[in-house]
């Protein structure tokens, strides 16, 4: 699937391969989203002839898997972790803790009561 990958590094974070892959998938998805939505529209519209809808179904199924939204996963921007990621900060739980304690995340404060 490296045919989609950018020839030069285009993200500012530490280039872990999983992050690069996810970034590539995101770009491919954004590029192909209108086409996918158009095909989905044809499939869902019952007023179109059955043949046209079946063809659209086939075409949608034959699109590359990178054009699918389900391939995209929110990963930690700094460490590439796939689990325990705070989507608001795009950080894994440990990176979040380190950065929050260092005061790099505005508005985040350690709770104590």
């Amino acid at each position, binding site marked *: 699937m490296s045919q989609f990958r950018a020839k030069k*590094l*285009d*993200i*500012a*974070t530490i280039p872990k391969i999983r*992050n690069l892959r*996810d*970034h590539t998938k*995101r*770009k491919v*998805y*954004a*590029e192909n*989203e*209108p086409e996918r*939505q158009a095909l*989905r*529209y*044809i*499939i*869902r*519209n*019952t*007023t179109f002839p059955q043949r046209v809808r079946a063809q659209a179904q086939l075409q949608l199924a034959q699109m590359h898997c990178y054009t699918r*939204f389900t391939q*995209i996963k*929110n990963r930690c*921007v700094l460490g590439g972790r796939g689990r325990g990621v705070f989507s608001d900060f*795009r950080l894994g739980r440990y990176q979040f803790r380190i950065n929050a304690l260092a005061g790099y995340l505005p508005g985040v404060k350690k709770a104590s009561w």
Partner: protein
Amino acid sequence: MSVARDRILALMRTQCSIFNTTYNPQRLRLGSRILHQRLKGPSVAEYYPPRIGAISQLRKLYPKYDILDEKEEDWVEHLNVAKSRGKENPKKKKTAAESKKFTRKR
């Protein structure tokens, strides 16, 4: 007291014209739901911060200025030192006969 159907249809039509939806009294599956969905691609694609301010980019943007790359300079200096001590990379072999010399030794 029941309301006449044509009154209800008229109400639906005005509702559709006001809220910009499809007038569909037969409730056919028209797929307009999908056309109403916003495209989330652009926001999805900008999850990772873009790489800006790299030295190659700066050089391209400001060709008039001389931009120093410390890492590159260190590397070039290291290469020059190695060259002066005779530890440079071997020359590229041009012909098949030259490259065979290494294989014969084994």
